[in-house]
């Protein structure tokens, strides 16, 4: 199954990326991410590495969401796959899509740890934030819509899906910004007091939101994925 999903993701990347580039909505978080760090770069550039090591994997989760989100080819439902196989397909696909940003984050943090630019604790918190973020974003990407042409449309998932996506996006961005650019390193914080408190508050708020959303929508996403009709009912 891993091989099959990986192959499908590989072949789906090019048309998906083309679709992603046509959607201007995804540009705003990217601009926002870069604007956040801009004033701090002018003051001191030492945290820029830490910031981008956290943010780039998060961006990759958003890109993967944009590339694969909301679509599944109708052929998938016409082919002889059982409901169980489609369920497995979804879980494996979710695992790959959620796992890739975590892998990037692990890689970047490992390099930074080796370069002595960050403590193990902070590296762990960054990877955890990326893992939470990409887990939730990839569930959304699983909101499969029975769309034969492959054009991105929001279907198959309840309306709250988009709202929660925006909440997680903002919480994730700010949690990572406070963790890497402002606090810098939890072992030797750049700013103490309220900044660190805010960092922990954002970190836990983000984690809780992700857990809530994953628990709430994961099963529904599987339900939409397994049955062609389940996804279509919501379109009618």
């Amino acid at each position, binding site marked *: 199954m891993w091989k*099959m999903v990986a*192959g*499908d993701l590989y*072949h*789906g990347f*090019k*048309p998906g990326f*083309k679709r992603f580039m046509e959607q201007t909505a995804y540009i705003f978080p990217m601009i926002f991410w870069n604007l956040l760090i801009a004033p701090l770069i002018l003051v001191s550039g030492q945290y820029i590495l830490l910031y981008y090591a956290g943010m780039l994997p998060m961006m990759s989760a958003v890109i993967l969401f944009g590339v694969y989100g909301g679509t599944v*080819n*109708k*052929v998938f*439902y*016409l*082919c*002889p*796959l*059982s*409901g169980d196989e489609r369920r497995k397909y979804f879980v494996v696909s979710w695992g790959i899509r959620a796992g890739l940003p975590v892998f990037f984050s692990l890689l970047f943090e490992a390099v930074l740890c080796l370069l002595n630019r960050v403590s193990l604790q902070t590296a762990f918190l960054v990877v955890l934030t990326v893992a939470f973020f990409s887990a939730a974003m990839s569930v959304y990407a699983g909101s499969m819509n029975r769309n*034969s*042409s*492959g054009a991105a449309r929001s279907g198959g998932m309840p309306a709250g899906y988009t709202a929660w996506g925006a909440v997680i996006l903002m919480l994730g961005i700010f949690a990572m910004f406070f963790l890497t650019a402002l606090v810098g390193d939890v072992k030797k914080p750049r700013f103490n007091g309220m900044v660190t408190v805010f960092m922990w508050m954002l970190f836990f708020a983000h984690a809780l939101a992700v857990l809530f959303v994953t628990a709430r929508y994961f099963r529904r996403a599987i339900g939409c994925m397994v049955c*062609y*009709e389940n996804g279509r009912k919501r379109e*009618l």
Partner: protein
Amino acid sequence: MLQLEHVEKRLGNFKLSDITFELPKGYILGLIGKNGAGKTTLLHLLMGLYTADAGKIRVLGDDPKTQEVRVKRRIGWVLSEDLFGAGQTLGGNADMYGKYYPEYSRAKFLEYCGRFGLSPKRLLGKCSKGEKLKFQFAFALSHAPKLLLLDEPTASFDPEFRDEFFKVITEFISDGERGVVLATHLTADLDRYADYVAMLEQGKLVFCMERCELADAYRIVSGEEYKLRLLGDKVLSVESGKYGAKAFVKHSRRMAYDTALCVSVPTLEEIMFYHAMWQNGAGFTGNLRKG
């Protein structure tokens, strides 16, 4: 091959109701009806994409819902919509989805590509609508299905390929073990090739019968209106003109017509047209439709 008993399916405001028919092995069933009559919904039920709300469906002896994999392995499909990945080549697409079919043969796929004038190295996104459907058809045949479900494919084919298409279909059913369901509103081809014809109208099955039986079931009778009135309740719908009227009549072998009337066997297109008129109440008992 196919068995449907009192099948019902509701989709939003549309309802497919009380569909009952059978298709034996070795035949072509033409599914006709206007846009929105329920042809695609019925095909989706046969493909196992939808579950029937009521009734029984058997495809190749199995329930397409409970025996999903078994049924889908033996079904080939062509849908008049963009399927498969546009960014991949025809060969790439066929191999990617062919792996789900145990009987898929790349050699067979390439053979059909050659026969249909398709290059397997061409990107699907660069193909015309007709070529995309030819590709779907080649893919459908490449995994040795027992049943072909074809949804409006012929409309996008050029006349030359349409002949080739029906030649392939005729070859396909020639062993007497396989079947074809072809939904279309281009009825001229069905007049030549279909063994059975089923007509849907607003989600209801108007009839499902053998083509030759259908040829005996109706007549188009034209002549003076008062003479047509004598045919009584056999007249299903009437089209009145300046110089006479044309009636769509339920025919039986014992029926005798006035010699002054001109009687002809209706084509499928005429049957579709006049049935629609009948549904709209255009008989002598209803509102007379002016032609």
